[in-house]
């Protein structure tokens, strides 16, 4: 039972290990020139001065919402990606690909609309 998950744990180990190693390596190898700005905590690009409950520009929410919507649509692509091999094996690769492309085009239309309406513009 548990042995089924060995590949998963190996991948997890690699992912954690790699990111840890890379960060550590950068810290060790890279040059250090500290200044005030660099030393302050990073808050999503906001100046960490004043109340944390300060009002954000509505653009943040807008981008967040757009992100959520597009992010969640990925859920439909996972099952397709997982079983695409079998479709190819059955000879239905192009057809299924076309269907998925249609789906992606719909998402792309949404994206085009967003860009055109300035939903992604930051100022």
């Amino acid at each position, binding site marked *: 039972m548990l042995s089924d998950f060995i590949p998963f744990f190996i991948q997890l180990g690699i992912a954690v290990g790699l990111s840890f190693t890379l960060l550590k390596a950068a810290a060790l190898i890279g040059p250090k020139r500290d200044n005030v700005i660099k030393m302050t905590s990073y808050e999503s690009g906001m100046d960490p001065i004043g109340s944390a409950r300060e009002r954000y520009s509505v653009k943040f929410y807008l981008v967040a919402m757009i992100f959520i919507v597009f992010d969640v649509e990925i859920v439909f692509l996972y099952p397709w990606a997982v079983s695409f091999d079998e479709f190819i094996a*059955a*000879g*239905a690769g192009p*057809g299924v690909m076309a269907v998925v492309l249609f789906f992606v085009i*719909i998402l792309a*239309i*949404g994206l*085009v*609309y967003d860009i*055109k*309406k300035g939903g992604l513009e930051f100022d």
Partner: protein
Amino acid sequence: MDLSQAYSMMMTDLGATLFLLIVAVSGLVLVVFDAFKPRHVATPWIAGLALSAGFVIEMMSIGAPEGLAWYDMMRTGGSAAFVNSLVLGSGALSIILTVPYLKKIGHNIGEVYAMILFATVGMLVLGAANNLVTVFVGLETMSICLYILTGFVRSESGSTESALKYFLLGAFSTGFFLYGIALIYGATGSMEFGAIRIAAEQSAGVMFWGGVSLLLVGFLFKVSAAPFHMWTPDVYQGAPTTITGFMSTASKAAAFAALVVVLWKALPAERWADVLAVFAVITMVIGNVIALSQQNIKRMLAYSSIAHAGYVLVGLASGSQAGYSGALFYLMVYTIMNIGAFGVLALLEWDGKEGSEQTLESLAGVGYRKPFLGWTMAVFMFSLSGFPPLAGFLGKWAVFAPAIDADLVWLAIIGVLTSAVSAYYYLRVLVVFFMKPEGENSPMAEHSFDIPRSSAAVLIACVVLLVVFGVTTFALDVTSGFFAADTVTQFLG
């Protein structure tokens, strides 16, 4: 399955749901088109043509036998075609009325048309669903678009407020609805209507019937049956008037159609009839009684639409073929009447303190100043209150008579009594229109306005249809063919 077979099936299914494809693709096209050419004059044309094309296609397939498409997820032909053409027709008429209305209120936003198209897509999926998954997807597509349509006049606090209320309560009821689906799925192991019924007929326990109850919550909310109706008055009052007309007709028709099919195909014939009868009574009483004391005409029509949902529920509660077909017929009649009534109101809306509130008082003397609006409104009001020979009467007959046949005489009597009450408030509109002198500072005096030809044509069409469907019964005959007993067995077998 053989691959070529799968392809050919897909092409058949695409053909069978061509109307849906047209509307959906037009919606997508409109989104892009509007992004590049905002407020272009062609936008409503594209939307209207797409809906009309779909309408024509579906009108032609009324009378075709019931069929299934997309791996039994959707139904085609039969009652689905009828409901689809109802929804598409309502959408097309609403778009015609919306164009001048948006110009008048100064919110000529192109997305509105795309949203109407997407909402229509949702309704079409809902009305033609054969599976609880499709029901859910359709319902939600429709609802989300309607939330947006309700609130698109962002500058007006009424519009946003009603949208927020609609949204919160709609989402809330969706939760129950979904939970109901989950329970039914757990109890029967399927989400396809026919399979649910087969499983439920063998064993149906607390889990199943609890699931059905929660499922009904979702439907009753969407059709605004009491006590799930509370959102209706606020939303109808706050939404832009022509959108209210669209929302109150097409979405209700689609939700009711789905409910009818669920009752007819997915549930064993027990238990639910009396439950629906109880809710029908509550709905008719609440709707008609509270409508009496309303001063705002849109709000009054909202309560009236609640009451009409009650009448349709009477037909459903009878649980018979005649009841279902009567309900569909009633929905059609109701759609025509309400599109017309809201169409008249949309023309009578003007800015300013008194105007946008649309109190009855502010409309005094309309029938005198604008006889056309007065007379068409008279037809709609008389039909809504069920005066023969207009279609409203025949519709009421079509839903009450099956109830009597199903030994629900008390229900029919309550229906007739409450609709007698309704005559007061419908008539009140006409009294104000025709028999009250214009007020001192009536907005009409300041705002001379013309009736756009397109709107006039829609109103005339509604009047003609009401008369035609009132004195002829061919539409009733058409609907009564949908729920014949043999079609059920055909599906189950």
